[in-house]
């Protein structure tokens, strides 16, 4: 069901989308444009703290995320902020939860905000959504299906959501609310959108398994083992492509696909693509326009084999 408030939102790309996740940024913007969904980038945003700053001090992370929400709500007067990165999305949601429930967090955020010279973010001022919500709630599958110019023609896709989009459940109060809402144990928003674009979603058990992203370099062997499991499970389920909705997961899968082969001799052929790249191609954009050639895992041949592009 298309809702107007999701059609023009504040956009928080985050650090990864300016670096290794460049193709996700490019394809998200291109898909928004093709669908008539507007994005206004948060002015002068900062890093949300990712998975690292909380290990130094969780309340610094809460402050970092609150500053982004404060600018979007107080200075830009937005009601909704959209983050395509699971890490950013998770941290903004976590900050929202902590500021609504924990006095200690409120005090630290208030102290740091006034010293930094901006208005303190108050819980409830803005709604944080993921890029999946943005398309699902701003357009909806029915309308999306109508706009598909170039069907994905039954391309077999394993939808991979990772950890930060659904866990822990208490920071996502809108999920698990019955039919139509997103599920934290079996998420389906990406499946729904890609099915509307003509893809065939395979039955994939590791949708919310962990890729080891937090230790992708600091404990690389563990990450390689976890990623190899995900890649092999997707291949065994018959997938040609793994669709991603997080730059850390995406880069992790790509990097450790190479590392699994180089260091452990585990070879997999499944391709990794952002869901926005797949939707973009379905909406008639060229693979180049959505940066398919920029992925280390080059999906162009997989699309060609099905005569999609």
């Amino acid at each position, binding site marked *: 069901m298309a809702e107007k408030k999701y059609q023009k939102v504040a956009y928080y790309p985050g650090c990864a989308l*300016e670096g290794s996740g*460049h193709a996700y940024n490019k394809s998200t913007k291109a898909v928004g444009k093709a669908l008539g969904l507007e994005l206004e980038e948060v002015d002068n945003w900062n890093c949300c703290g990712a998975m690292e700053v909380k*290990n130094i001090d969780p309340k610094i992370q809460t402050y970092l995320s609150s500053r982004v929400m404060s600018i979007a709500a107080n200075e830009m007067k937005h009601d909704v902020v959209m983050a395509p990165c699971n890490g950013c999305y998770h941290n903004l949601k976590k900050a929202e939860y902590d500021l609504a429930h924990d006095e200690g967090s409120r005090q630290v955020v208030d102290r740091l905000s006034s010293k930094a010279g901006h208005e303190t973010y108050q819980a409830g001022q803005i709604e944080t959504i993921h890029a999946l919500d943005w398309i699902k709630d701003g357009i909806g599958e029915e309308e999306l299906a109508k706009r598909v110019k170039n069907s994905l023609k039954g391309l077999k896709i394993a939808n991979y959501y990772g950890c930060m989009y659904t*866990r*822990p459940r208490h920071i996502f109060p809108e999920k698990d609310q019955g039919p139509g809402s997103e599920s934290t144990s079996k998420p389906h928003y990406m499946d729904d959108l890609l099915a509307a674009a003509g893809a065939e979603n395979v039955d994939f058990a590791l949708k919310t398994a962990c890729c*080891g992203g937090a230790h992708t*370099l600091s404990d690389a062997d563990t990450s390689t083992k976890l990623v190899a499991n995900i890649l092999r499970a997707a291949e065994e389920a018959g997938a040609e492509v793994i669709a991603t909705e997080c730059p850390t997961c995406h880069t992790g899968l790509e990097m450790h696909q190479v590392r699994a082969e180089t260091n452990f001799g585990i070879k997999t052929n499944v391709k990794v693509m952002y869901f926005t790249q797949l939707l973009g191609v379905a909406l008639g954009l060229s693979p180049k326009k959505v940066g398919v*050639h920029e992925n280390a895992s080059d999906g162009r041949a997989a699309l060609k084999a099905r005569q999609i592009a």
Partner: protein
Amino acid sequence: MPIHEKNLIRPENLSTHDNLVIDGVDVSGDWSTFIKTRVVADYNENLQEEIGSLPGAEYIHRCWQCGSCTNSCTVNAIEPDFNPRHWIYLIRMGFESELVRDKDLIWKCVSCNKCTYACPRDVVPEGVMKATAHWLELKGYLDRTPSTEFDEEFANQVIRTGKIEDGRVMMGFFKRTGQPLMQPWLIAFVKKMFAGLPLGWMMKMGFATVIHPRTKGWGPAHAAIAEYAKEQEEKHIAAVRGSHPEAAFHTAD
């Protein structure tokens, strides 16, 4: 999935007899292996308090040992000795020396939050793992782990400039941990990535590692966070080492 915890019984605590007769009954064979009785005299009565004072472990006292954390754990599935339930038990019982035996494993938590999702008592086991790894370092049981080096490299960039640049974080991390940048798998990956990247973007990314991206007007935020971070660090050290830091400080072995 059942939890297999036989690995918790250490070989040195098992006693096996070839021929054994107890009260006139022959119990040789399968029945002849016993776990040795022991008396634990070296409790740290403050262990739960010390670790519970670090951020993330505030709710450790809620644990009722159901094992949902270990059962759902990503790392446990590939490394059976990684056992959050057991470590929480040791901490709550004050078994410091037993906890320290697993010091090289505890930091390996990947923060997937499956435990926190599954926990019926909202213990936040993921936070307990991070706090315990931090405690091991603060107590001097453990040298700085690669995870800590990465977190610090990352956090320092964010606190100083408001943003990170992923290439710079990676190079900074390799430098801190003394790893070469030219690792065969990384070269293979970068080659694949560059094969499709437009030249203009490569130059922009290369430029970003030299000219660091920065949030405009970040100065006051930097000062505020740095001041707060320092206060917190001092608080944590005091909580773990008490008023006589040297007394409770062990050197890493």
